[in-house]
């Protein structure tokens, strides 16, 4: 039996599967999933107090967006930083696969999980507040896109930070997304388009923002982050 070598796609899929198995058997995924439940508590109380649909929808969206600093950071951050710190990267780097597949594989496996957690959180909140009767389906769909897209981009950003600061990947990612990104997103100047949180609000249609510029800015930020991560891991020793 001779090893024939893997294509980039095959290697990416293999690493994605490995990342998911490790996440499921580790504790980080369950902590991340638990955060999805928390916004529902507030929405449930608001619903019982008779708050308007608009208020509940805004609260649910903002609280779901608040999980951005946590969920991607604790899913993707340790997946990469522990690999680099514990030197289990030696197993991957000594294999016949291009290094970019390590980033691609981990993101392919875990970024959709981060997005799914955010979508489930907002989706269930939408049902708790009354579903289509209270918040129209198209608004809900935009909202789901408005939490999923930032979750994917935040995952890419965390991957980039993990290759830049492996020892403190989780800490730096949380602080960047919680403080820097959020503050930049509130600024009344064009710079806010760099913010992932702002991009999410645009896609979701809050503050009368158009979806397209927000989506484009998220795409650019995500692409830059992935490029940084791939470049860094290609040079790491």
């Amino acid at each position, binding site marked *: 039996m001779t090893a024939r070598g893997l294509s980039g796609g095959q290697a990416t899929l293999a690493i994605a599967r490995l990342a998911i198995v490790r996440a499921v058997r580790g*504790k*980080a995924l369950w*902590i*991340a999933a*638990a*955060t999805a439940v*928390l*916004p529902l*508590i*507030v929405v449930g*109380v*608001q619903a019982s*107090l008779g708050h308007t649909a608009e208020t509940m929808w805004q*609260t649910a969206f903002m*609280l779901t967006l*608040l*999980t951005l*600093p*946590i969920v991607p*950071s*604790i899913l993707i*951050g*340790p997946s990469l*930083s*522990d690999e680099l710190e514990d030197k289990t990267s030696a197993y991957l780097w000594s294999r016949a696969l291009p290094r970019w597949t390590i980033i691609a594989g981990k993101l392919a496996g875990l970024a959709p999980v981060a997005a799914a957690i955010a979508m489930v959180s907002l989706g269930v909140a939408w049902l708790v507040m009354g579903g289509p009767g209270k918040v129209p389906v198209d608004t809900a769909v935009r909202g789901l896109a408005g939490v999923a897209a930032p979750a994917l981009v935040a995952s890419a950003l965390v991957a980039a930070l993990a290759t830049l*600061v492996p*020892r*403190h990947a*989780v*800490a*730096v990612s*949380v*602080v960047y997304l*919680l*403080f820097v990104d959020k503050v930049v997103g509130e600024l009344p100047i064009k710079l806010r388009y760099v913010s992932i949180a702002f991009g999410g609000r645009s896609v979701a249609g809050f503050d009368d923002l158009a979806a397209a510029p927000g989506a484009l800015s998220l795409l650019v930020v995500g692409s830059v982050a992935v490029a940084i991560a791939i470049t860094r891991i290609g040079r790491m020793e």
Partner: protein
Amino acid sequence: MKARTGVIHDLGYARYAGERRPPETLWRVIMRQHLAYAWKTRWRLKPWVVIALAITVGVGVVLYVSKNSIVGMLSREGVGPTWLTAAVPFAYTWYRIPAFMISMTIGAAVIARDRETGAFTFYFSRPVRPFDYVLGKLTGQLALMAVIFLAGPVVLGLFSVGLTETTSEALDQLRILPKVLAIGALGTVAYASIPLAFSALAPRRTIALAVWATYYIMVSTIIAQLGALLWLPLKAFDLGLAMESMAMRLFDVPIPGETLAPLWAAIGSLVVQSAAAIAVVFVMVRREAEGSVGGSS
């Protein structure tokens, strides 16, 4: 039957016969080691202290400029906000950022890291008691947080006293110092002890960080939101909001609406959470010392 024989080998080693450190001072060794650990590397402590310094300088500039501006004049006439007193409590909103960073890079990681690497074996195979370990780590972390929550605000407080023009004004302004010390002390204890508790509970460093971040960001926010809906004092559960409430209330800064928690709730929340955290740290470390001494096989 073989005759019994014995031999003494001179290994050139002489047992230490000098003075030994009293056991009750071992915690100081651990504290110093904690501070040395914090100072190492680029990202653990230094950048966040620089940020705290920048905040102090920034707020100091605001104090100075507003003192001489029209706003300062108006405040002296009793019109508009009193900047000399308002700027200092507002600064705590910013000091929380480097404090949270230090809690992520050091506070929430340190005990979990010791457990993960098997360092407990080294500590507790020596005459180090769980109490010494906890006291050492706690005082070390308190020292780091004090740099953020006490040093900067006290400097600002003294600076604001220095900006006064008359002796009576200065004496009046001196009243802010006990307030600054009280807020800083409670903030120091809370931000030092609560991350340590999560660190003591978690099996791994990354889990500790994850849980602490979730608690600080999500759980606190959710409970604060529930507080806004159901019962205002609940807002004080959010550490940041508790500090902010305490600062604004003590400095009598007029904040509209029900943004803040009551003063008693803010102080109570910080005290209760800190006390619970310290208890958790002690219980978990003692369990570790008396059971398995941690570490991987």
